[in-house]
């Protein structure tokens, strides 16, 4: 897919809670084709602390409004800078980067999109895509507390939503992998993105039950376009780049200890 270096304008900066913002961006021309699961390399201000670009998933593309959404969790200087952007400000993105999810081979497939924390970001765009193409999906979303559950009203538009919170303030209490939905094997396709321990638990469940499973990895990145080889993950085919050959991998290919 052709990649672009583009300036976007901030349309809206929605503060979702103490840690998260949703940035709605637009571009003066029609957005290029972008697939679910892909990400952008976001230019920060280039100060000594934020020298490199930051990889951020495409959360959603609103073609009608020509909008692109980024869901940002504030963890350090770069994401804090993004979270403070005011409407009208410019943001430079390289996109679309990385691969996409493997779409189920039949419309009756039972699909679970399992996200935790900021890992829900790519799930919204994929869920919307699946919904628009006649698939039915289940969103399984885990968070620490009620306040950390993000974009639930958006997810509700495209499928059934199941939640857990660690403190029991919303949905079932516990981790998302402990949700009662998993008590009997209910799924044919599982896609997951979130903290590594969560993704490993999901991968273990999928492998035990012989379910197709893809995980979207978050490795630190230099270039984002496959040249520096900094972002690799060990796989059955050797070290592969998460930015160009990923970020989405079939879990059976990954050599992580699950």
């Amino acid at each position, binding site marked *: 897919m052709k990649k672009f*270096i583009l300036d976007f304008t901030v349309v809206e900066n929605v503060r979702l809670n103490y840690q998260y913002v949703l940035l709605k961006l637009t571009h003066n021309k029609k957005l290029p084709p972008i697939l679910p699961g892909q990400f952008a390399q976001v230019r920060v201000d280039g100060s000594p602390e934020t020298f*490199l670009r930051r990889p951020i998933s495409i959360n959603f593309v609103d073609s009608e409004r020509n909008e692109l959404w980024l869901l940002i969790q504030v963890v350090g200087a770069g994401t804090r800078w993004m979270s403070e952007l005011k409407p009208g400000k410019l943001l430079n993105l390289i996109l679309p980067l990385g691969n996409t999810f493997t779409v189920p081979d039949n419309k009756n497939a039972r699909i679970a999109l399992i996200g935790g924390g900021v890992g829900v970001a790519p799930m919204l765009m994929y869920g919307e895509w699946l919904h628009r193409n006649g698939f039915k999906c289940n969103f399984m979303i885990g968070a620490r507390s009620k306040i950390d559950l993000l974009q639930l009203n958006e997810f509700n538009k495209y499928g059934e939503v199941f939640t857990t919170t660690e403190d029991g303030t919303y949905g079932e209490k516990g981790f998302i992998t402990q949700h009662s939905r998993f008590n009997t094997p209910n799924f044919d396709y599982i896609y997951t993105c979130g903290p590594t321990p969560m993704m490993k638990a999901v991968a273990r469940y999928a492998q035990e039950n012989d379910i197709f499973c893809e995980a979207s990895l978050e490795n*630190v990145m230099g270039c*984002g376009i496959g040249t520096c080889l900094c972002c690799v993950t060990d796989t059955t085919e*050797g070290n592969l780049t998460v930015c*160009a050959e990923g970020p989405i991998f079939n879990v059976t290919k990954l050599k992580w200890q699950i």
Partner: protein
Amino acid sequence: MADLTTKLGTIQLKNPVITASGTFGYGTEHLDFMDLSRIGGIIVKGTTLRERQGNPYPRMAETPSGMLNAVGLQNKGVDYFVKHIYPNIKDYDTSIFVNVSGSTVEEYVKVAEIINDLEQIPGIELNISCPNVKEGGMAFGVSCPLATEVVKAVRKVYKKELMVKLSPNVTDIAEIARAIEGEGADSLSLINTLLGMAVDVKSRKPVLSTITGGLSGPAVNPVALRMVWQVANAVKIPVVGLGGIMNATDAVEFLLVGASAVQVGTANFIDPAISVKIVEGIDKYLNDNGFNSVSEIVGGMIV
């Protein structure tokens, strides 16, 4: 437009901007962003005799105004390069150099011999910053006898432009530069990355799997500039300057201290089209200051 051509030993580049090894892939990855024919040259990834998986993840850490890397020369080996990569890149309208790496003198020699037969590769860049397995992992480039041994051996088999890339992790870079010039190198490039490290205070662990790694980016720029100036004053062969070049002004600084060409590395990560912008910026500098050619400013620093 000024005359941007520059001579590097045996060959002429269309302009003095080359992309640095390990930071530009094989050029192919940048086709969406820029026209490769606009730059003076491309130095492809470090190539070794056999396939190498490189070091375990994490291999990178962002540090103030720069980054540490410990990629460890991951590449598919020279035979794969010849069969599967060379055919795709050989017709790019720019000068393509292969960065040759190895763990023994014999390995360097074999890779150089194989690359020598590739018609559309006008030169190699010998990366002597690699650890020498026979000397307990000490880099070839940090000892004068080891550096001269590998350059002498490669010079015997390699007939085209032999550029040798110097390590900055030495006490007297001019001494090593002179010794390598004496072995018949056609040009010298510097600097490779500076040895550094970073620690995660939360886990109290090193950030890189290898503990130490190579620093690049603007953080190394003044050190690189000083070393290029020292080397340019010490040798007669052309010098290619690099280290933290982010824009045309940085590039002109290197030319002024005596570099005949420059390489752009880490800056490619921030702007994949930066190398073309640097070519344009050098041209503008020449025009704005009444120069007709690049050669007029090489070594033109007024002391």
